[in-house]
Each structure stands twice: as C-alpha cells, then as structure tokens.
C-alpha cells in the first residue's frame, strides 16, 4: 500500500479535496482515467482546431471536456468569443481603466480573501488581483448587476479552469450572466433567482413527486437548498472539478442544465432525504452529499438520462408562470419596506 501523501490531496485544478472516506479517492482516480479517454475522442478536432458539429459536439461535451481544452471549447460554445469579438480589442482594458466607476469595489474587496482561501493561486496576491479585476470590470460593464455575492466563486473556478486567462474568464462570466442564466438571476433583487427556485420546485413536483410531498410536509422550500446552486452555478456547492463538468454542459446547452443537475442531485439522494424529519436535516443531508460529490460522471448520467425529458420549452413555460408570481411578491415586499422606512422617522415603540 502506498503511504498517504503528507499534503492534502488536490483536484486537477489545485483545489483541496475534502475526504470523508476512501471512496472519494477512487472516484477521482476514475475521473482521471476518463479524461485520458476523452482526450483521444477530441484529438482530431484539436488538430483541425475546429469543434465537432451538432450531435457529436453535444455527446462529447456531455461526456466531459478534458481540462486542458476547456478554455477553447467554453469560449466557443458559450458565445463568449462572439461577445468579445463584438467589442473593440481594448474593451476589457478600458474597463479596467474605468474601475473608479465601480460601486462594488468595497464588496468585492471584502469577498476576495473569502473566495477559496485554501487555493494556492486564488488565495495568493496574484490570483486575488485577477479576480478583483474581473469582478470590478464586470460591475462597470454591467451596472445593473454590479457585484453579486456568489459570482466570486464562479469566477474563481472559471479562472483556474481556463488556465488563468483573465480576459477569457471575464467574457465567460458575461456570457453566463447575460446569455445563459435566466435574466435577473444576479440583479439587485435576485428576482430571476426567485423565478428559478420556484420553477425548480415545480419540476421537483413533476419528476420526483414523493420527494416534493415530503419537502412540503417539512416546510422545506427549494430556495433553502438550491440558492447557492443557481447563484454560484455549483462552484461553491460541489467540488470545483465536478462543478467544471456542470459548466461544460451549461455553456453548451444553457440554463436548463442547472435544473437537470439539481433534479439529479435530489434524485440520487432521494432515499436518504425521505428519511429526514425536518427542513434543517434535509438541508444537511443535501449539503453533505453535494459537497463531497466526486463521482460527477455518475451524477451527470442521471442528469442526462435518469430524469426523463426536460426541454427548454417546458422550463420556459413554468418560468413564465412563476415570473408573474415573483413580480407580485416583489411588489408586496417593496411596499412593506417602504412602510418600514416611513416608520423609521418615528421612535420605536
């Protein structure tokens, strides 16, 4: 038997692996073998520097993009390269020069040291400076969103996965927020995130009715367990190497992947979840499971083949319905808060 390494083991991107048991090491080893296999499938496309077309691309992406090809493939499939090409070549550096316009500097600063504090690059000054530039530039580029807590984790994972190419990471962030995720997901009221949470709740009802009923009994709203899934795109929820695998499909197929993965996570843990008897326990079981999810291949199989059909049209129909509900909820809140504010002038009772 090989001696245990002195240092904590890390994934392909240098993120520390939390090991509750030896199974995780086996899962990770399996992943490495798969990468080697997938590299062979991608070899001819790399040689021609041209992506495969249609269904081949979809299949290869779903199987998992080899880590060193992610930068290239993500830029192409997400539309980030197009977004970049639509601007002048100096666009990103101009944003950096305009950093003084950002209203998010203080919040970004507060979160930088709190973003993957154990990662050798991201926790070092160089990595922090790169994340600072990306997040601040983005807050200038898209003032409606500014800085949304959670995106720091996404940027961290993406930046490392694209080989520290800062500008690529910036444009991938832009593609996620502006093209891929539901509008308003990261905005000043998170209204889009509310829509997604309610949509997920409904989809759980369709695909996993027993679990849905159980959650209703416990008063366990989907937002309790899934907010971080949708606001960090799994980058703070799963081990980063697993999250990158979700990003592979997300960049290519769009936000419905977030639902497929969410449903797969719940489905795979269903037996354990049905045994919980309060919302807190439910949340703990989910978190334990997702935090240590190294066998991402198995999960993605469930996501793609284990939950039945889930078309964008279906998701959009539910969203539309939920959007109206959320709008009303937001208006009520705004009214309540306005009332609270007028009371402010009077002394408390």
């Amino acid at each position, binding site marked *: 038997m090989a001696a245990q390494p002195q240092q904590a083991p890390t994934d392909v991107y240098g993120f520390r692996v939390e090991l509750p048991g030896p199974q995780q090491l086996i899962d990770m080893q399996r992943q490495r073998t798969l990468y080697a296999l997938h590299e062979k499938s991608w070899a001819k496309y790399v040689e021609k520097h041209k992506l495969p077309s249609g269904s081949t691309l979809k299949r290869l992406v779903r199987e998992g993009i080899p880590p060193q090809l992610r930068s290239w493939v993500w830029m192409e499939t997400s539309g980030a390269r197009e977004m970049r090409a639509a601007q002048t070549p100096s666009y990103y550096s101009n944003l950096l020069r305009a950093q003084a316009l950002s209203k998010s500097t203080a919040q970004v600063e507060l979160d930088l040291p709190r*973003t993957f*504090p154990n990662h050798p690059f991201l*926790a070092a000054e160089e990595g922090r400076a790169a994340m600072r530039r990306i997040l601040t530039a983005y807050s200038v580029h898209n003032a409606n969103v500014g800085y949304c807590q959670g995106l720091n984790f996404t940027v961290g994972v993406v930046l490392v996965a694209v080989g520290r190419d800062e500008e690529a990471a910036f444009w991938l962030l832009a593609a996620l927020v502006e093209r891929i995720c539901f509008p308003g997901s990261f905005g000043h009221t998170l209204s889009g995130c509310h829509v997604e949470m309610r949509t997920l709740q409904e989809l759980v009802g369709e695909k996993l009715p027993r679990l849905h009923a159980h959650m209703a009994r416990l008063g366990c709203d989907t937002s*309790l367990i899934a907010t971080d899934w949708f*606001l960090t795109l799994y980058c*703070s929820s799963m081990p980063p190497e697993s999250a990158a695998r979700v990003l592979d499909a997300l960049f290519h197929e769009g936000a419905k992947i977030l639902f497929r993965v969410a449903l797969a996570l719940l489905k795979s843990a269903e037996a354990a979840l049905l045994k919980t008897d309060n919302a807190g326990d439910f949340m703990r079981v989910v978190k334990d499971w997702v935090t240590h999810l190294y066998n991402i291949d198995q999960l993605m199989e469930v996501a793609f083949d284990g939950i039945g059909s889930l078309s964008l049209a279906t998701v959009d129909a539910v969203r539309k319905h939920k959007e109206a509900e959320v709008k009303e909820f937001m208006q009520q809140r705004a009214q309540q808060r306005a009332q609270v504010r007028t009371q*402010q002038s009077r002394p*408390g009772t």
Partner: protein
Amino acid sequence: MAAPLAELAQQQTAKLVLLGEMGSGKSSLVLRYVKGQFFDYQASTVGAAFLTKTLPELNVKFEIWDTAGQERYHSLAPMYYRGAAAAIIVYDITSPDSFTRAKSWVRELQRQGNPNMIMALAGNKADLEGQRAVTVEEAQAYAAENGLFYVETSAKTSANVNELFEEIARKLPKPEAAPRPPQGGIVLSENQQQQPKKSTCC
C-alpha cells in the same frame, strides 16, 4: 398546546436565525459557538448554512440558520426567519453602515416576524477596539428602546459568544409555562437541569 406531562421533560427545539450585513461575522459567530473554530478568511455565505447545537443544561436544541448578508439576498430572508423563535442581528462595531443595516432588520422583524421572537443585537468584532465606529452607548440606547438583548461579541477571541447564545436559550418561553403543570413549572425545570437526557424512562 397543552402538552402531557411526559412531554415536558423533552428537549425544546428552537429555531434561531442570524441576520446582518455581509462580513459582519454571522458565520464566524456560529462557527465559534458550534465548533469552537475561527477562520481569518471565512468563506462568504451564499444562500444559507444550517447547524445545530444542544445545550443540555438548559434542555434546548438550537437549529441555527446562518444567512447571506449581501443586500440583494434580503428578499430570500423571510424563508429563514419565518417561524423562528429567536434572531441574532449582527453588526460590525467598526462599520456604521452595518449598524444602520441592523436597525433595518430589527424593524423588519418587528413588522413581519413572529411577534414573540426573542431578538438579540450583537456588536461583533469587539476585539477591534481601535477601529470602533459604533459606540456602546449608542447601541445600548437603541437596544433598550426596542427591547432587544444587546451584547458585544468577538468571534475571533470568543468573548461573549457562549453568553449570547445561552442568554437567548434562557429567554425562550418555556413550553411548560403555558398549560401550568400541577407541580409548578419551576420545580420541574430544575429536575430537568440535573437529568438532562434520561428523564423519559420514568
């Protein structure tokens, strides 16, 4: 409501929620209290975290919901404070903005929260005395005016952290107080203190 006597000996479960400005130290307070740990760089909370802690001497089990602090997450908060028995509103004594934010939480809970909710105001990072920007007097006056339990804490040095949670546990309305048990609630709760766990067998 009217619990049979046998149930009175059972542990009381209390939902506790932490609210307050991002970076004020909510997660750090919980982590210090539940696990005795502190990290200089505590990862920021997205959504919420859930932890539990049992206080055998007081026969209370806290179910603690630690929420995200950024302003835009505010719209998700009702899900967490709904039905909470207690709330800790945290501010950072070096940040006047975080104190303003704390006051707005207090107002929201007064309006929307459970009317019997125990509310505590925690001025955290008390170890950073040199950078203090919110005085004890100001916070104390505000707390008194609003009927809040107030204490300054440090998740870093652990000053007043246990005290904060224990005081909340003591203030919780005791379930046996309502139906007025035959022997009187006080005697019973003293028995519980001596035999926290095995009291259901007899």
